[in-house]
């Protein structure tokens, strides 16, 4: 940990940590994602073969995690922007964080079936 730390604890610090961790994760995913998409320039078979792994139950779980990371980063990013540009932003930062968490929970619940449904059907039959 860097010397002379400014870490303060509480919501503001944890939302910042989560924003940083999700941002870095999404960046690494994007790097791999552009590489796998580039296989369309190799052959249809090569591309379809790699995309097949995206359809397995374990990777479906990773995709659900990716959705979780992106939704949080996007919603909290909008909150950061509101804190910086909206005159009342700093005063409502805490309420906005709980709004972000609330919307995130609802959207994650709504994503369960669309993102994981096919994996559940494969695992438990349909």
């Amino acid at each position, binding site marked *: 940990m860097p010397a002379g730390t400014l870490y303060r604890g509480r919501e503001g610090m944890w939302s910042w940590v989560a924003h940083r961790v999700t941002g870095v994760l999404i960046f690494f995913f994007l790097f791999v994602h552009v590489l796998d998409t580039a296989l369309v320039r190799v052959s249809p078979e090569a591309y379809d073969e790699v995309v097949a792994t995206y359809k397995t139950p374990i990777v479906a779980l990773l995709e659900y995690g990716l959705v979780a990371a992106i939704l949080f980063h*996007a919603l909290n990013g909008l909150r950061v922007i509101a804190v910086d540009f909206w005159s009342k932003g700093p005063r409502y930062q805490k309420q906005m964080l709980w709004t972000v968490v609330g919307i995130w929970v609802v959207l994650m619940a709504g994503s369960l079936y669309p993102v994981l449904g096919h994996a559940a059907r494969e695992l438990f039959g349909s």
Partner: protein
Amino acid sequence: MSADTTSAIGPVEGPAYDVDNPAPYIEAPRKRTGRTPRATRGNFEMAAWLFMRLSGVVLVVLVLGHLLIQLFLDGGVSKIGFAFVAGRWASPFWQVWDLLMLWLAMLHGANGLRTVINDYAERPNTRLWLKGLLYTATVFTILLGTLVIFTFDPNIR
């Protein structure tokens, strides 16, 4: 202490003090004056700060729209394959969408990682190498992704 030395505190014997004016005026610390040196390093950090916010707003639409199409609509991931990509990139609209998403997300993410490196890598050599690696990977990925969109060939076989 006499009033003729140049101090930050105004002359003590000057005005009469009362409830509305109870103490000598003290100049705000670090106040910008005509003699304050200009920032000489340009405004790169400010531009980067602004870019993070502007690109963020655009990426909300581009990335969440992309995820909705790829993971939620029309059977989710199950439908994805070479034929699906060929169908999408037949339209200039989705080509431009993907191109913009590629450039904005890569530059936004790379600039974010630059901040992270600045925060945690303390030895100058470590910083140099990590940033070199980051910039190389970023340029490579942007060029490869751009090339793939522009040279996509649905009849490759």
